[in-house]
């Protein structure tokens, strides 16, 4: 392959790039978001400066992504921390677990989504919307939510759109070949073309189990605030650098 073509590759490996160019459109993306109160000291320790904590209610979310352009069908789970950057309300993505390599590699390498490989599962069983998360063969999170109890609350869609429109922030770290940091940035991501097809609120429960390599339980559950279920189409575009730790 000639040098010019090498520069236009979207990703490694040369013979079959792991992910194509963005943006990436998702169809029928389903969320279960369980919000809970936790320890503010633990939040401060996890949130990178110059982000500031925005309350003590964090979330664990499960996602079912049956149709993601360039990525395929997969599941994900994440721990998110509300924060502010220069006064703007944002959401910091602290940890993510997925079961599919292209979004894992693309997520880390393009935007700095802090993804590891595990087994997240979001499903409806009987009357319960249920999320499980396994890492290295062990259960580390278990979430349950009532199924569409407030089906006639028309304010839910607008509320879901407001939540999904919030800027996501990630800490992108890529080492150089000598082990020193090549990239150390806060990255901002804002989804576009958000079309919420359904949104529900309801009671939820959440259990987090301590595990060293997927330490969701480091933000302990003090009190569950509630659950949200969304179904949406949306587009993941490229992001922008919010803060560069290697400059200035």
């Amino acid at each position, binding site marked *: 392959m000639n040098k010019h073509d090498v520069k236009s590759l979207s990703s490694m490996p040369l013979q079959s790039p792991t992910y194509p160019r963005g943006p990436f459109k998702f169809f029928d993306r389903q969320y279960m978001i369980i919000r809970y109160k936790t320890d503010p000291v633990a939040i401060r320790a996890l949130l990178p400066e110059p982000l500031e904590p925005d309350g003590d209610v964090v979330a664990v979310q499960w996602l079912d992504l049956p149709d993601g352009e360039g990525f395929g069908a997969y599941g994900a789970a994440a721990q998110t921390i509300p924060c502010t950057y220069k006064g703007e309300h944002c959401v910091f993505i602290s940890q993510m677990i997925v079961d599919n390599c292209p979004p894992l*590699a693309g997520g880390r390498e393009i935007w700095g989504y*802090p993804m590891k490989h595990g087994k997240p599962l979001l499903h409806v069983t009987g009357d319960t919307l249920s999320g499980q998360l396994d890492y290295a063969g062990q259960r580390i999170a278990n979430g349950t939510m009532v199924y569409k109890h407030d089906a006639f609350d028309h304010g839910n869609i607008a509320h879901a759109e407001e939540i999904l429109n919030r800027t996501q922030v990630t800490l992108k770290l890529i080492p150089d070949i000598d*082990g020193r940091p090549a990239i150390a940035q806060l990255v901002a991501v804002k989804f576009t073309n958000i079309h919420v097809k359904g949104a529900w609120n309801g009671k939820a429960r959440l259990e987090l189990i301590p595990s060293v390599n997927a330490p969701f339980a480091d933000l302990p559950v003090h009190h569950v605030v509630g659950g949200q279920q969304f179904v949406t189409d949306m587009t993941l575009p490229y992001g922008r650098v919010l803060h560069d730790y290697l400059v200035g």
Partner: protein
Amino acid sequence: MKVEDILKLPSMPAASPSYPMGPYRFVNREYMIITYETDKDLLRAAVPEPLVPNEDGHVLYEWIRMPDSSGFGDYTESGVVIPCTYKGEPINFTAQMYLDDEPPISAGREIWGFPKKYAHPKLEVASDTLTGTLHYAGQMVAMGTMAYKHQESPGGIEAAAKGMTKTQCNLKIIPDVDGSPKICQLVAYNLTDITIKGTWVSPARLHLIPHVNAPAADLPVKRIVGGKHFIGDLTLPHGRVLFDYLKEA
């Protein structure tokens, strides 16, 4: 989390880095390498300039069992390596790699640019046969077999250890957050502290099945050259930039 602590993190996520700082020590790493001859025009297309593929059209198809790897754990890898030259010096180019463990996938891609994807490789002894298989997205894409320890390798463990010091390289591509290339380099490294505990050559066969996302079969098997099986300890250190496409191309 304070800025000085952020800059000391070895990797994402900050809450629990995927991999620690290198170097990385591997104990009892077991290799099966099947060398075969392929189509020279296809080989040229699979190798990035300024690397030059070997004139014999040889490809190494590998399985590696790594039961004890510092920072990474216990996993298995399989992939395609192409012997090349860079400015006349021999160098091995890693073209494709498939493994079943996330930290070495992330560290491999992000530090050295190993072209790694998640899949299910297996290397095992099945009665009289050293057997390697690779499944990608639920389908078999490679099956290699080698007779079990028929003959010690010529030159024994000393020659095998010397062979392992050969310079190896990858094409490292990391995009910027706007999609433009941020890192696009040929990266080189040399394994260190190598102890080979046993090395054998035996007859081998290799079957590659076409698959779009794991296209080992894009370099078809025309003739098997031979199989090599060895076990050893080694250290994978950081590396160096050989060629920077964003500055030099």
